[in-house]
């Protein structure tokens, strides 16, 4: 008896899991830099989130009577956990990432039908949920270690995450103090607060959080993600359209406002290299499931996310906005896809066939 299969018989040797693994690999430099500047918290959260995510995935697939082995092997849950862990403040309580990972996999992914069917980016939807539900824990970012009053060891981080206090008995609030003794916020947060206190941007930028044109540590974190992202593009894992669309749109918004009023609005440079910009542009927006699939659509998707991020950062109530922007635009993806169908060979116009 001869085996029968459908053509093509030859396949490129890249599977879903290898795609996911590549994305995870290329995010690792950024994670490393982040750990270097903000301590071990991210790694601990990564472990917690991964465990919860994989357990949840297995549980739900079992309940749905689907084989869970291939789903675990495809590493998509791991990637979601990674993105979530990176986005959470390093010393947030352990249950933050646990709840987040559970929500991401159970509600956002499996309830929508599993991999490929989720409308929203699981990590970002979970992040938004956490941010809205637990605003204090979710905004308690640490100062970069070089500027912090207390140095945090791995065990400190573990202890804070699990109990709320470091091995020396400091609370999270105390740990957030900078070397000047004040609680330090992220650069974007600092600017936002200062502008509301009628300081000019230049005055705000004098603070310790900043060095030169961007925030301490944050610049390097973003740079690491940028490099990782370029690697992904070169490996043809992601296309350049979404990151380019987002960065250009964000940059041009920032540039226009900066030119209008440099005292009030930060430079494009600052926007590009602070917060989760690069992580978002290369790793979060490019989640294939919840992003656009046509190239034109990808540019539009990236650009609108960029615009949303800028608008929320500058005019909204939150210092950073990748999560919100992504979730908002996820909803628009089917629409964008529908209207950006490429022109088909032999057809005069794009879109509908001449029926």
């Amino acid at each position: 008896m001869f085996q029968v299969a459908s053509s093509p018989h030859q396949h490129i040797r890249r599977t879903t899991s290898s795609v996911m693994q590549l994305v995870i690999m290329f995010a690792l430099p950024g994670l490393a830099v982040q750990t270097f500047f903000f301590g071990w918290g991210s790694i601990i959260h990564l472990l917690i989130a991964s465990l919860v995510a994989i357990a949840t995935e297995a549980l739900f697939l079992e309940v749905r009577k689907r084989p869970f082995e291939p789903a675990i092997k495809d590493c998509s849950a791991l990637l979601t956990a990674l993105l979530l862990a990176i986005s959470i403040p390093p010393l947030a309580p352990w249950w933050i990432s646990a709840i987040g990972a559970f929500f991401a996999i159970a509600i956002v992914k499996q309830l929508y039908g599993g991999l490929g069917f989720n409308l929203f980016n699981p990590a970002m939807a979970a992040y938004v949920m956490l941010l809205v539900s637990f605003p204090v824990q979710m905004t308690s970012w640490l100062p970069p270690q070089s500027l912090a009053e207390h140095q945090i060891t791995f065990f400190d981080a573990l202890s804070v995450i699990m109990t709320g206090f470091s091995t020396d008995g400091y609370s999270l609030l105390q740990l957030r103090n900078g070397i000047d003794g004040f609680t330090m916020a992220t650069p974007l947060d600092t600017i936002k607060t200062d502008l509301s206190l009628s300081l000019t941007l230049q005055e705000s930028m004098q603070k310790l959080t900043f060095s030169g044109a961007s925030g301490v540590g944050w610049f390097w974190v973003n740079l690491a993600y940028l490099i990782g992202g370029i690697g992904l593009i070169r490996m043809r894992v992601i296309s350049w359209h979404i990151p380019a669309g987002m960065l250009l749109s964000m940059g041009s918004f920032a540039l226009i406002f900066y030119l209008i009023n440099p005292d009030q609005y930060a430079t494009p440079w600052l926007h590009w290299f602070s917060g989760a910009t690069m992580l978002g542009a290369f790793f979060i927006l490019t989640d294939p499931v919840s992003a656009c699939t046509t190239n034109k659509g990808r540019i539009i998707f990236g650009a609108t996310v960029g615009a949303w991020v800028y608008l929320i950062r500058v005019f909204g109530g939150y210092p950073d906005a990748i999560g919100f922007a992504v979730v908002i635009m996820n909803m628009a993806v089917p629409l964008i896809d529908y209207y950006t169908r490429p022109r088909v060979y032999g057809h005069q116009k794009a879109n509908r066939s001449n029926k």
Partner: protein
Amino acid sequence: MHNVLERLKSGRTWDFPGGVHPVDFKTISNTTVIKRPSLPECLYLTVKQHIGLEGQIIVAPGDKVLKGQALTKNSHPLSVPVHAPTSGEVVAIAPHVSAHPSGIAEATLQIKPDGEDKWIDLTPLTNYQSLPKPELIEAICSAGIAGMGGAGFPTHIKVGVQKEVEYLIINGVECEPYITSDDRLMREHAWQIRQGIDVLTHILNPKHIIIAIEDNKPKAIEAMQVACQENRKYLVCSVPTKYPAGGEKQLIQMLLNKEVPSGGLPIDIGVLTHNVGTCYAIADAVFSGKPLIERVITLTGKALSKPGNVWALLGTPMSHLLDFAEYDVKKQKRGQRLIMGGPMMGFSLRSDHVPVVKVSNCLLVPTDSEIPLTEAEQACIRCGACADACPAGLLPQQLYWHSKAKELDKAQDYNLFDCIECGACAYVCPSQIPLVQYYRQAKATIREDEKEQIKAAKAKERFEARQARLEREKEAREEKHRLAAEARKKRAEATPVKDTADQIDDSVSESDPKAKVAAALARAKAKKLQSAPSNTESTEQPEKAQKSAAVQAAIARAKAKKEQQAQQTAEAKEETPSQKSAAVRAAIARAKAKKEAAQQNLEKPTAESNEPQDTSSQELEVSEMTAEEKKKARVAAAVAKATAKKEAERQEKERSDNSVAGEQAHNEPAQEVEASEMSAEEKKKARVAAAVAKAKAKKEAEQQEKESTDNSVSDEQSQSAPTQEVEVSEMTAEEKKKARVAAAVAKAKAKKQAERQAAQQNDIDNPEDKELTE
């Protein structure tokens, strides 16, 4: 226009979107010359080896054929013949597994080679330039040439286009991995390919000729350049290696930056493409008169110990080629796999008996590690890699969702039918989704659904037409009755009173109790008498049966005819449709008469129950269809059929009288009614009659002769009476009595009708009437 050529001359081409770069593995098979395997034991020539329609088989099993002899003839413009690849004997014409993805067996000519390989007389057309073009095209057609690149479109159709050809593209791209048959052919037979191009150029007279070869075949390019250097019009052009550059549409886009309109053909934009293999075959056909009986096929894959290209006779089973290339089964541990065509668009064979056909360009036998078996399909992660790879600019992912969900209209909305099934999307899919398979299924379903829709529409139309017809006939019938009634009234006033009763009898055929009952009675009696001896002489005599049955039928018909004539006479002043309606009525009358005859026939013996055997058989007849009964019925049916044949002859005669009824044979409900009664009655008759005494036969034969020669109405009744008398004379005493009564009734009836006839004759003065009667 000119910058297109300039650009190509300078070695640049355009690009098409998407495409993939699979590893090509061409060196497995392109390093050795084309070999020639031995003659296989048996050749299997599928009758249909190309797109279009199959030819008509013109040989029969047992025929001796010579090499190159046509085995089918092209009865349709879209068909091409197939030829005997070697001399031998046609051993069978039977279904044989086909070179089709489905493997469904198709009509196949099996030829056993005699080993002599003797050619039929060939007629080369070396002076082709002085021949009229249609003759050349005809030569190409009768050489059985169909596109050899893979699709197999009949070449003479493409060559015979009436439109102006601006660009003639010779496709030597061969973009699929593994395949090297065109590559080798160009290297070894560039000169003959050029001759083929010469012929094409002569026929089509294109403005430009481009020979496109992928840049991974430098030796083929070189060979073609050498062969084409004499003619400056021929531009050998190397195109970048990218799958599917060899697709007709993509090649045109690459070379000319033009697109074939959706649903259109390249000729719509003045382009025609031909495969190099086709050119070679054309040269063969024109310069040596050889039809297409062999082709180059690549035997490749790492499971073959001796891969390479071979000249394979069409119809050679794959198993023969596998033996030649030393197929090592052990290298395919996880199941045997044969792929006809390349790894991107080829299909799996279901048997190694599949024969080589005109479009087979490759047989790929990969090892397990070389081309892994398809893995389980995983969830689509919407990565969009497929859209990036699609050379047609489609969104494979959307097509996939819609095809999978059977939302076929939406799939069509996403231009499903512009998919060329190149497989680039499935090649890049990280989730191993067999996308192309989904599209093919969706396409096939859409096509079948469309066919079904057309069929449903047609069925609806036919149904409605039928309903309308039945309605119309019903109305016509009623109208006739009304008119007849009026005419009767009129006549009743005009003619003497004494005739009135008869007149009524005549015209109201359906409610003509006296006449009918009388006739029926007479026949029934006769019938009974017949059935009585049937027991005593129970040997079956089909011929007898026929005759007797025929007589009965004839009587009934005669009666009906007479009535019909009466009717027509009565409706003398009517328009033409009256004929038809008269026929209808006559038929109804006939049917009724027969029915009654049958009934009585059936009842009497049962009631008297003096013939148990007969009775039982008739009872069986009545209670329908137990298993054993069926058997009997069939036997009876066979007898009846014979009867029917004779009857048919008679009917023909009748029809000439009754032309409308004859024409509408199966449409006429009235006749159908009659017919339905017939079957039961007929069988009975047949069976009963089968046992009628031999002595009776002679007399009846005489009677019949008389009847058939003189079929005129007025005689019928008087004949029927004697017929019965004759029968009567041979019956036993008590039966005779009965028969006599019957005969008396019949005679009386006959007399009466004779009278009536006379009355009618008076009415038939009108010439128009006569016409109608005829």
